C-alpha cells in the first residue's frame, strides 16, 4: 500500500500529475490509497516515493470527467478515477460504454458535482460589506456546498462580478477577489456578515412574484433542495406563503367581478375612436385593408399576412406569379425572396425595369407545411386559386395593364382557367376574355429547382422570354 496525498488547493492538477506518473510506473490501483489534505494518516500505508514524468494519452472525455469528479465528496473518487484510467489502458473504448458500471458510477459523480456547482452559481447570496459609495464596492457571502467545488466555481464569479471585490467563505476553503485578482485561502470560521437592506426588497419581490393559485411544492424543492435554504434570505418566507396560498386563491375565485373604475370607460372610448381614425380609407389602401381581412379560403390561418401586389397603379405591364413565399410572407411584399431576386437579376439583363411594372401573385397568402423551424412551400389547390382570383381581378381592374406576364402554371390557371401544358404554351401569347393579352412563361422558382447543368440554359431561355414580352409590349 502506498499513500498519495493531494493538496486542498490545486487538487485536480495534482491528481493528474500523480496519476500520470503512477500509471507510467505501472502501479496498480489496488496498491494505492488516495487522500485530500493531510488528515488522518493511515498507519499501514507507506508514503509514496517521488515519481516523475510519464506522458500518457487518454481518450477524449476522460479529462473532462476527471475535472468534475475530483471535487466530489466521495472519499473513493480519486481511486475510482485511477481505476478507470488503469482500465482504459487495455480498453480504449471503455468510456463510450455508458452501460459499464464503473463508467456509469463516475458519470453519476460528475453529474452530482456539476449540479452542485450550478446550484452554487445560483444560490450564493452576497451582502455588501464595504462602503456603497466606494469606487470598487465590496461584498461577501457564506455558502455551504455539498462537494469541494469552490475552486472550480470561483472563475464563474470572477467573470460575472469583475468590477467589484468579493469573498466567498465555505466550510472548506474561501475565495477572495480583490482588485481583480483571485486567491484561494484555507478554511476560515464563518464570518458575521452585516445586514443588507437590499434583502428586504428581494423578499418583497419573492413574495409578490409568487402566484398563490398555483402551488407546486415538489417542483420547487426538486430544483431548490432544502439543504441550500439556510443561507438564502428569501426562503424563510416560504412556509407562510404556502400556508396562506389556498385562502388567497379561494378569495380571488369567490370575489365577484367588480365594477370598472369611472375613468376606464372614457379611456376605452377614446382609444377605440383613435384606432378607428387611424384606419385609412382611400381606394388603394382600402383594397389592402380588405385583402388583409380576407377569409375566403383557410390559407390566412397559417400565414403572417396577405401580400398585395406592388407597383404603379397605371403600369402597362402586370407580372403575375404563384404565391408569396417564406420571405414575402414575413415582409408583406411580393417577389423579395430567392425567386424574386433571381427574377430581378434576369429582368435587369432583359431590360425590364421591375419598378415600372405591377408585380403580384395569383394567390395572396403563403401556403406551407411546417417542418420544425422551416416552412415547406406547398402549391395552392384549385379551390384556393379560384377564391383568390377575386383579388387578382380587382387588381387587374384597377391597373388595366396592356400586357400580363403570367409566370408558372398557377398564374396561368388563375388567369385562363387552364394550367395544363405550361412548357408547350410558354413563349406564346393568349388573350383573356376582356381582350387583355397575356404572355406565358415559367416561374423563376422553377429555375431555382433545376440542377446547375440545366439551369444556365433555362435561365437564358427565361431571359429571352422576358425580352420577347417586352418587345411585344412596346409594339402595342
Amino acid at each position, binding site marked *: 500500500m502506498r499513500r498519495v496525498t493531494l493538496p486542498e488547493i490545486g487538487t485536480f492538477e495534482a491528481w493528474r500529475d500523480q496519476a500520470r506518473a503512477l500509471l507510467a510506473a505501472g502501479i496498480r490501483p489496488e496498491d494505492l490509497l488516495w487522500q485530500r489534505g493531510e488528515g488522518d494518516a493511515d498507519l499501514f500505508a507507506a508514503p509514496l516515493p517521488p515519481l516523475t514524468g510519464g506522458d500518457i494519452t487518454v481518450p477524449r472525455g476522460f479529462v473532462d470527467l476527471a475535472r468534475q469528479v475530483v471535487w466530489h465528496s466521495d472519499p473513493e473518487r480519486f481511486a475510482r478515477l485511477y481505476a478507470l484510467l488503469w482500465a482504459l489502458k487495455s480498453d480504449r473504448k471503455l468510456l463510450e460504454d455508458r452501460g459499464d458500471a464503473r463508467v456509469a458510477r463516475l458519470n453519476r459523480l460528475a453529474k452530482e458535482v456539476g449540479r452542485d456547482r450550478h446550484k452554487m452559481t445560483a444560490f450564493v447570496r452576497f451582502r455588501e460589506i464595504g462602503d456603497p459609495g466606494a469606487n470598487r464596492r465590496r461584498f461577501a457571502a457564506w455558502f455551504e456546498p455539498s462537494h469541494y467545488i469552490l475552486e472550480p466555481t470561483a472563475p464563474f464569479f470572477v467573470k460575472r462580478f469583475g468590477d*467589484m471585490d468579493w469573498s466567498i467563505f465555505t466550510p472548506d476553503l474561501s475565495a477572495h477577489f480583490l482588485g481583480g485578482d483571485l486567491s484561494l485561502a484555507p478554511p476560515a470560521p464563518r464570518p458575521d456578515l452585516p445586514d443588507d437592506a437590499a*434583502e428586504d426588497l428581494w423578499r418583497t419581490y419573492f413574495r409578490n412574484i*409568487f402566484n398563490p393559485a398555483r402551488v407546486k411544492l415538489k417542483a420547487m424543492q426538486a430544483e431548490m433542495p432544502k439543504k441550500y435554504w439556510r443561507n438564502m434570505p428569501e426562503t424563510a418566507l416560504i412556509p407562510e*406563503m404556502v400556508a396562506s396560498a389556498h385562502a388567497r386563491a379561494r378569495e380571488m375565485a369567490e370575489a365577484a367581478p367588480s365594477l370598472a373604475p369611472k375613468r376606464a370607460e372614457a379611456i376605452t372610448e377614446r382609444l377605440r375612436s383613435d384606432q378607428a381614425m387611424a384606419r385609412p380609407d382611400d381606394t388603394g389602401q382600402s383594397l389592402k385593408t380588405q385583402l388583409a381581412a380576407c377569409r375566403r379560403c383557410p390559407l390566412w390561418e397559417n400565414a*403572417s*399576412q396577405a401580400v398585395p401586389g406592388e407597383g404603379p397603379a397605371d403600369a402597362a405591364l402586370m407580372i403575375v406569379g404563384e404565391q408569396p413565399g417564406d420571405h414575402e410572407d*414575413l415582409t408583406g411584399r411580393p417577389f423579395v425572396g430567392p425567386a424574386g431576386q433571381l427574377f430581378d437579376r434576369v429582368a435587369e439583363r432583359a431590360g425590364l425595369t421591375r419598378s415600372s411594372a405591377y408585380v403580384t401573385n395569383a394567390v395572396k397568402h403563403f401556403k*406551407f407545411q411546417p417542418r420544425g423551424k422551416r416552412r415547406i412551400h406547398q402549391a395552392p389547390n384549385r379551390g384556393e386559386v379560384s377564391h383568390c382570383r377575386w383579388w387578382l381581378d380587382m387588381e387587374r381592374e384597377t391597373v388595366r395593364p396592356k400586357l400580363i406576364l403570367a409566370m408558372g402554371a398557377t398564374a396561368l390557371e388563375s388567369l385562363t382557367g387552364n394550367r395544363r401544358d405550361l412548357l408547350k404554351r410558354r413563349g406564346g401569347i393568349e388573350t383573356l376574355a376582356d381582350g387583355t393579352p397575356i404572355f406565358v412563361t415559367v416561374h423563376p422558382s422553377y429555375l431555382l429547382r433545376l440542377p446547375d447543368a440545366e439551369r444556365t440554359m433555362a435561365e437564358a431561355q427565361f431571359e429571352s422570354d422576358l425580352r420577347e414580352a417586352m418587345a411585344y409590349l412596346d409594339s402595342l
Partner: protein
Amino acid sequence: MAKLTLDRKLAILSDAAKYDASCASSGGQKRDSRDGKGLGSTTGSGICHAYAPDGRCISLLKILMTNFCIYDCAYCINRVSSNVERARFSPEEVVTLTTEFYRRNYIEGLFLSSGIIRSPDDTMGDMVRIARMLRLDHHFRGYIHLKTIPDANPALIEEAGLYADRLSINVELPTDNAVKSYAPEKDPDQIRRAMADVRLARESRKERSFTGKRPPRFAPAGQSTQMIVGADGANDATILKTSTRLYSSYKLKRVYYSAFSPIPDSSAALPLIKPPLVREHRLYQADWLMRFYGFDADEIASATRDGNLDLEVDPKLAWALSNRHLFPLDVNRAERENLLRVPGLGTKTVARILTTRRHRSLRYDDLRRMGANLKQAKPFITLLDWRPRALSDIADLRARFAPPPEQMQLI
C-alpha cells in the same frame, strides 16, 4: 395620491408581472466583465436563482415598468377596467433594482414588460431607454428580456433588439377569434407582423457586410411568445397547431403555455377557473415532443380524445399506447428516430444507447444505468435479456400507467 415607496412599487409591479411565464435567461452570446469595467456575464445556459412555491423559476427580475394600461384585456389583472392599485417605476428605479439585485447574485438580469400608457410608442420608448441606460451608462452585461409592444414604431423595436438578449411578443390566446373577444384592442395580424419583423431583423444581422464585418447582433437569444391556456375554448390540438406555425414561421425559441390563472378583481367577461396546471404540463411535454423527438402536431393530436391531451398519462405514452402495432422495438437494432418514440427513453438516453451499441449489444441493466425510465419503457422494448411477452399484449396497458381512480371524499 400619496407617494409610494420603492418597496410598495416593487410589490405592485412584480405582482402585476407574475402572469408572464417566461423567466428564461438562456441562449445568446457569451459576455463577461473580466475586464473589470462592467458588471455581469451571460454563460449561454441561464441560471435559476430561486424557485417560488408555485414551482416557477426566478431567474430574472420580472417587473412591469407600470401597470397603468389603456387596454382592456379580460384575462389581465392590469386591464383598464380593473381596480388594482397602480404604480409606475422611474427608469432610474428599475436600473437601481436590477444592478443592486444583480450584485448580490439574486438574478441573471431584467425581464421588463409594461402596461400600455399614452401610446405604444411612448411606452416602448421608455422601455428602450431603461435598456439603454443599463447597457451604456452602467455597462451591464447581464441578461435583458424586453416584452415588445407590437404596435410600436419599428425603429424602437430595432433599437430594443440591440440592447436586449431576448425580445418577446405575446400572442396571448391560441386563436384570432379569442384574441378579438378577450383582448379587443390587440390585433392578431399586427402581432404576427411584429414577430415577422423580429425574425427578419435577426436574420439580416447575421450576414456580413461587404467589408466582412459583422453588424451588432440583434436579440441574440431570439424571440419567444406566450399563450394563455384554458381561458377560451380552444382544444390542445388547436393550441399545438398554433405553436407549430409559430415555431416554423418566426423561428421562436420557445412558446410558453400559461394556465389561465385567477386574478384579483376579475372581469365579468371571463369567469375564473381553477388553473389547468396538468393541462399546461401536458402541453409543454407535447411541445418538447415536437421540438426534440420528431413528432408533429397531427401525430400527437391523433392520440387525443376530442383534441385534448390525456391528463393521466403523458403524450408520448399516449401516442405509444394508441400505436401498439409499432412495438415492441428491438433496442439493439432500432433507428434513432424510432428509439426516440419509446416512452421512458429521453434524448440523452437514446444518444447513450447509440454510442454504446457500436461496441456491444445491450441488456436490461445497461438501460437502467443509462438513465432510462424502464417502468414506462418495459412493455415497448426488447433487449438481449428482455422480452415484454404478455405485457405487450395485455388489453388494458394504459391502466398500468394511469393513476388509480381517486375515491370520492366525504366532507
